[in-house]
């Protein structure tokens, strides 16, 4: 009894220390938003005194005539629209795999999964060449279009649709519902929880995608936050640490709010990195 009590305490200490490690950068980022550059250089672990939070925030929003607003709106546009398109298209495809015994089913599924394994890296460079020929470089479509392909969601949607019972479709058939109605009114409600989970995962991964906009966007006005914040400099081109930190903070706040409020939908599905 003594032994297990002691090990319980040891485990607690380990868990608390690890929690400290995982929390620390969040803490440091948050207090960083209250400091100007000379306060940052003091290397203290306490919030800046006097606080420069308001200064930093107003400077971030005033930076380059308010380009930060553009970045935020772009991020929302790319993530909200791209995620919806990707998951909705995947829901349609998943329905086809569940409902119909069609020619080429097996082959198509294997092909889709096989292409899912090709890293995004290998497609981004050719996409750049393709978009250059189509005059799409430095337009919002260059980010939106590739974001609307969500192969992972197709794979997951096939498994979600497979969990919908045959009775659901039989009942729809008896009611004389056509295929589109069956999908829209009867099928879709059954996969909505999975739809939301995939939407949130896609939203986060588009919000966080740095490489695609880095390659296809040049104008600051069309950059998403994740790319924009890496371009913050003073007029001479030197980094402005306090502004970069404050902007980084605002970049992750929407993610943290989403994660905290919608925690039950963020079930880890499979490893995505």
């Amino acid at each position, binding site marked *: 009894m003594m032994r297990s009590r002691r090990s319980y305490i040891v485990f607690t200490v380990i868990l608390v220390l690890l*929690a400290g490690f995982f929390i620390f950068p969040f803490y440091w980022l948050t207090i960083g938003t209250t400091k100007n550059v000379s306060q940052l250089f003091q290397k203290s672990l306490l919030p800046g005194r006097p606080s420069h939070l308001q200064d930093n925030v107003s400077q971030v929003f005033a930076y380059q005539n308010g380009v930060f607003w553009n970045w935020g709106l772009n991020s929302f546009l790319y993530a909200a629209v791209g995620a919806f398109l990707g998951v909705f298209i995947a829901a349609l495809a998943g329905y086809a795999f569940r409902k119909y015994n069609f020619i080429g089913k097996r082959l198509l599924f*294997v092909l889709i999964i096989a*292409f899912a394994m090709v890293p995004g890296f290998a497609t981004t460079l050719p996409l750049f060449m393709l978009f250059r020929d189509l005059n799409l470089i430095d337009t919002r479509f260059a980010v939106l279009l590739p974001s609307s392909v969500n192969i992972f969601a197709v794979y997951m949607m096939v498994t979600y649709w497979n969990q919908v019972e045959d009775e659901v479709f039989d009942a729809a058939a008896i009611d004389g519902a056509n295929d589109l109605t069956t999908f829209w009114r009867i099928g879709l409600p059954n996969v909505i929880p999975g739809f939301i989970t995939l939407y949130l995962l896609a939203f986060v991964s588009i919000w966080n995608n740095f490489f695609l906009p880095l390659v296809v966007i040049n104008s600051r006005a069309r950059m998403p936050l*994740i790319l924009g914040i890496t371009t913050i400099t003073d007029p001479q081109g030197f980094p402005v640490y306090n502004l970069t930190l404050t902007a980084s903070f605002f*970049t992750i706040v929407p993610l943290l709010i989403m994660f905290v409020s919608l*925690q039950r939908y963020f079930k880890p599905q499979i490893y995505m990195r």
Partner: protein
Amino acid sequence: MTWISKARLKATLKAYLFLAPFLVVFIGLVVYPIGLGVRLSLYGQRGARMWYVGLDNYKRIFADSMFWQSFKIPLFLLLVQVPVMLFLATMIAFLYETRKGGGPVYRFIYYLPYTIPGIVSGIVWSYIFSDSMSPLHPLLSLFGLENVKLLTRANVPGILLVIILWQFTGYTAFLVYSSLIAIPKEYSEAAQIDGAGLWQIAFRIKLPLLKGPLITLFIFNAIGAMQVFNEPWMLGNLVVLPLNYTPAMYIYNSAFSQGRFTYATAMGVILAVITCAFSWYILRSAGRQILGRRD
């Protein structure tokens, strides 16, 4: 076409109507670009001029020591970061199990870093290790270590290790924990009756049952290690890193700093082939899982 029933044809037509939106974006934005990439990799290029050279790019890449040196960091991550992370994640998952309800508060806190983009954790951690701002300097001076330079090029692999462990260990522990609670209770109860202790049950009984999920996690992380870009890219703002610090950085820099597009595409093809070789295992089991049912 007589061997295909009319009903099957009708089903096929309907199915492809539902599949059409996906097929359009999939072919246009994934399949075609990959084909284009493979084709471009067979071309020589100077400025806007391009001409067919066959496998010349590949021959040059195989002789390009800059390309192969760029794999040092992925290999380091594969051999050090991934095993360390899987070990830590498994230990943490066992610790969750000792808590009531699996320690939801700990799980929540440990998961948080995963929600943060690699660029932001790159920014924050590179500042935390920087000479001008590091909050670690006051701590180190307590131990008599004044003015130690933390962010040097020699230390970057270690710093990458910290950043990536910070980002992914909690998430991985969550995944291991999900597999852990799926193990039937009877196993550990039987062992308990035989007098096995907590850690004996963990290592002798549960760990072998986690082999499958751990192999899958290892492969996903190996793929991630091959493509690492964002974190070293951000660290590169505060410490000078070579153009070929990782394969992904070398590909990006070859294309956009040096304008060697077709050469970069060929390197992309090689990197994709290496990654796909890793994913073969997962591809097989995923196909089996889905296609084994309802067809």
